[in-house]
């Protein structure tokens, strides 16, 4: 067993090592401003104020394709998008109203003629979105980008500012979504931090690819990645 002298030495070294750890300011802000006490399943007010997402990087307000149609969302927390079926974890139920504002904010901007993707030929079709919410306030939204054929030398339209992560066996980019919402009087109000988008590259027919965008609110990055990995493997 450890002597008292050694225990004192350990305490002193831990005190020094711990004191040198500073909480990054951005992390501190996220931790303080996160909504830890959501009201489950009452999110209609969000849509009522005419929410928009604002891509802070570009400063351009972009409309969201917030799909309200729950008909295509199967019960049993299976979400269907095109030919893909995504299985949500237990406790998640299809959300009749969108519970998420920021999901896929890059996509409408790109589809509506964003710069730097000429030659890829994205159709100008707003993507559909489906959402699921848990009773404890977690929200996951899914959206499929239009399919495109990557060309040598052409940039990945989504590979701007995201952090590369692996989701199961899939390559993905994780974004901290900077977003704002149009409040009463048309004033833009910054949304709280803690909204994330995960762009997972999925193959489609004829050598084309597309991104399955999985956004989350009231979840940690780790929870989002875990949900995405299990949903994609199911």
């Amino acid at each position, binding site marked *: 067993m450890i002597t008292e002298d050694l225990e004192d030495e350990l305490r002193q070294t831990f005190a020094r090592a711990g004191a040198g750890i500073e*909480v990054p300011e951005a992390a501190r802000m996220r931790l303080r401003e996160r909504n830890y006490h959501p009201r489950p399943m009452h999110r209609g007010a969000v849509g009522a104020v005419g929410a928009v997402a604002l891509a802070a990087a570009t400063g351009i307000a972009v409309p969201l394709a917030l799909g309200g149609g729950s008909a295509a969302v199967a019960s049993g927390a299976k979400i269907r998008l095109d030919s893909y079926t995504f299985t949500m974890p237990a406790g998640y139920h299809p959300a009749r109203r969108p519970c998420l504002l920021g999901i896929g904010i890059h996509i409408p901007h790109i589809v509506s003629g964003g710069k730097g993707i000429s030659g890829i030929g994205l159709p100008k079709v707003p993507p559909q979105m489906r959402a699921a919410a848990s009773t404890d306030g977690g929200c996951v939204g899914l959206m499929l980008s239009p399919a495109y054929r990557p060309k040598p030398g052409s940039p990945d339209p989504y590979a701007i500012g995201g952090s590369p992560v692996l989701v199961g066996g899939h390559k993905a980019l994780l974004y901290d979504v900077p977003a704002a919402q149009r409040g009463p009087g048309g004033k833009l109000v910054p949304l709280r931090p803690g909204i994330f988008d995960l762009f997972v590259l999925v193959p489609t027919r004829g050598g084309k690819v597309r991104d399955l965008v999985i956004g989350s609110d009231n979840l*940690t990055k780790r929870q989002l990645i875990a949900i995405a990995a299990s949903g994609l493997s199911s």
Partner: protein
Amino acid sequence: MEWIADGRAKRQFEAFVAGETERLFRTAYLMTGDAADAEDLVQEAFVRIARRWHRVRSMKRPAAYARRALVNLALDGARRRSKLRAELDAPEGGAEHADETAARALREVDDLAEFRWALAQVPPGQRAVLVLRYWEDLAVAEVAEILGCSAGTVKSAASRGTARLASILAGDGWPARESVTSATQKGVTP
């Protein structure tokens, strides 16, 4: 499921978050060795506390509850309980360094980033014991309660963890500098 509905409780919770963020983050960082993981852990701990805030706020030491939630989350992420117990109960044999040797290795630590890196190499269960005992300064019995094991197990895990830590610090491996630089860039100063 409880939610924080009234304004007073909400304000209390927000004050609790503001007051505990730094301490919990440091503990989480020592447990994980990574700033992003630490942030995730702290966030998950606050989510867990928010769900039970009406009970937690009436406790004598809500901070202790928060610490326990954080440590359990960290260990859940690292391994299942049974594996953790197996690791804590592993036979002696790794304690090849005498106390004096270990104390010397600790005294010679002048690069705290190196110490944090070495700590991250210690198996999670032993690391949890070291962090709770010597960073959080908890009694053996409290650590045992949090980890769900006996006091004797905590003592032997502390001994093995310390020996392992000292062995790493003594030269069993200090990574390429870029790894440390990466850690410091994430908000950790040496």
